[in-house]
């Protein structure tokens, strides 16, 4: 993250909402820029990149999905989608693939702010946009929320892929349960470490060939978890 207040670009064609949200976020110390449609957003991106974008899914001139894809083609900027459509809708599914998070309208401002903060926390994590091959049995395609386990493609939930992002950014190193908690859930969700434990157990069921003898998702008891190659790859893979 750059120094100073996080910079957010809000794209929405409803002026009431745009002004309201900008005011609320400015009051909480964010640096806000706004755009009324996709073209204006793309013009703004030519001069400076924000830390995060909030995009309305339904816009008259260029819909949120098209804009999000345009933006992702230029840079891996995190995007939070605002939508009147429930997640689980076919179109929302497509958007979720490119977006970092998905907030349903009418949003509660504290909820949205918590999601923004969670997404900002993961800025700086360097995760490959291509496949991450962790061994013959496991390949992660986090940008598609998919894992390939023993040749079978497995779908990951948004939370599962967020945790794997945090682990993949620190491959081979233990990531503390607290960090995982902060990456996987927003403060307003009142999550506690048991959320991490249960999600990890479920994740292991998905990505390990033998979940009882995990080789990729290792527990550091009482500390956290780490994601590893198996069999170990390269000379530096053994430590950590």
């Amino acid at each position: 993250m750059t120094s100073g207040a996080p910079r957010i670009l809000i794209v929405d064609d409803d002026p009431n909402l745009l002004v309201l949200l900008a005011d609320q976020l400015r009051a909480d110390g964010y640096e806000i820029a706004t755009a009324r449609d996709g073209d204006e957003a793309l013009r703004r991106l030519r001069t400076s990149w924000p830390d995060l974008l909030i995009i309305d899914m339904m816009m008259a001139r260029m819909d949120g999905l098209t804009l999000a894809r345009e933006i992702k083609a230029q840079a891996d900027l995190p995007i939070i989608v605002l939508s009147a459509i429930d997640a689980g809708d076919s179109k929302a599914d497509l958007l979720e693939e490119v977006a970092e998070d998905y907030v349903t309208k009418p949003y509660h401002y504290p909820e949205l702010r918590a999601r923004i903060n969670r997404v900002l926390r993961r800025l700086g994590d360097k995760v490959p946009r291509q496949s991450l091959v962790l061994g013959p049995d496991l390949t992660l395609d986090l940008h598609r929320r998919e894992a390939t386990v023993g040749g079978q493609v497995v779908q990951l939930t948004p939370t599962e892929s967020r945790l794997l992002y945090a682990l993949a950014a620190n491959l081979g190193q233990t990531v503390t349960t607290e960090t995982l908690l902060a990456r996987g859930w927003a403060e307003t969700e009142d999550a506690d470490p048991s959320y991490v434990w249960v999600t990890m157990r479920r994740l292991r069921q998905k990505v390990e060939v033998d979940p009882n003898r995990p080789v990729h998702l290792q527990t550091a008891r009482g500390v956290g978890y780490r994601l590893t190659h198996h069999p170990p790859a390269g000379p530096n893979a053994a430590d950590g």
Partner: protein
Amino acid sequence: MDERVGEDEARGRADPTSRLSFRSRLTVALIAASILPLAVFALVVVLIEASFIGPNSDPNIGRLLLFAAAVIVAAAIFFSYGLADQLSAPLRHVVAAMDRVSTGDLSSPIRVAGDDELARLADSHNRLAGDLERRNRELRRILAAIEEVSPRDDVDALVERTSTDATSAFGLIDAVVVMGDASIIEPEEVVPGVSRPLRATLRAGGEELGVLLGRLPATRRWEPADQDLLDLYASEMAAAIRNAQLFATVESQNAQLLELDAAKDEFLRGVSHNLQTPLTSIRAYAEQLDLAAPDRRLGIIAEQSERLSRMVRQLLTVTRLESGALKPRSEVVSLGTRARKAWEALGADDVRFDVDDAGGGWLAIADADQLDQVLWALLDNGVKYGERTPIHVAIARDEAAPRLRLTIADRGPGVADADRDRLFGRFVRGAEPGTDSGSGLGLYVSRELCRAMGGDLLLEPTLAGRGAAFTIVLPGEPGEEA
């Protein structure tokens, strides 16, 4: 085959002469025919000798005659057998060839020299076998052509193929399929020495689709069996064409339905967006104003706009559930936390609310957004129909399975017996008048959502001192480090 052998044997026993082969019978006949005159001659010789030559004649002559008779008899048997064998040989050829035909070998013709009845028999057999083989070949081509046909084929391509396949399978000069009313095409007359016109109606399910017309080279014969085969082919292809036509209709209707469905989805998205966006502003501004200068009326605006949003969402959820487009994403959630949050969102501050969490740290596996819809609907019902009596939420582990149960109970009048069975239907409201502020979809949507998440929603039995009680059942997992 064995059965037929058995039959032959039975017939053999009934008629003893047929036990002998034709060759043996011919041999016997020839012997009889050659020996009988000889025997008569010998008798005459013996009689003459006895009466004219007298007893003192040379006895050697008698012996010589007897010997000569024996030699002649032996020679007669020998030649008779040879002759019978030669005479019956072509017959045996014919029998063997027919045996081959009956086992399916049509390729080897019988060769019988000459121009007699047997040669003609062999000729007609050869012709018969040739015809059979040709029709077999045609049948195989027809079957191959029919097998290749799929209902997904283009109708025009299928019609085209019907004529080309008919041309090659039946060895026609040309063939063409004319679709439409076949009766308007006049049948052509058969003129000897000129290629012969053929036709077969494409008939499927009592409906005439068209007609297959073709010409046969003048050198080829055309028997009723050939026409039968052509008719069979025409009706099979007609069925295939009909199927393809029906399939194309279904496909285009399907495409229309998909288009309509997509349009409906797009429409719903639009409606939802156009309702939720202003509602978001209304609620947020009301909350902002309420914060700056607290006013109960602003709270009501915020609550009611929230209620409106929920109802729009419910309607959207119903259509999604019915089209199977709603896919819950199972994440880890704490039921107690979720229930408290849903209660806060409801804003029923004047109603007492408590949560008794006996889940032992277990977490539910559910889609948080959808669980939120369910909890909100049940709590809203509890407040509305419980007549603002205290709401009690109890969370417990299921004894039998890794599941969690969350029961929401009020102390109101409970569910009337008349309502129990129809409560989870669509657009159903309680029997009490004046409580119709909902969409009537809450319990229906809630149960469907719970089931989509691998759980269920149950109405608990009526207990003394308790009003209506609903239990959400969801998959759960222990909240232990793993």
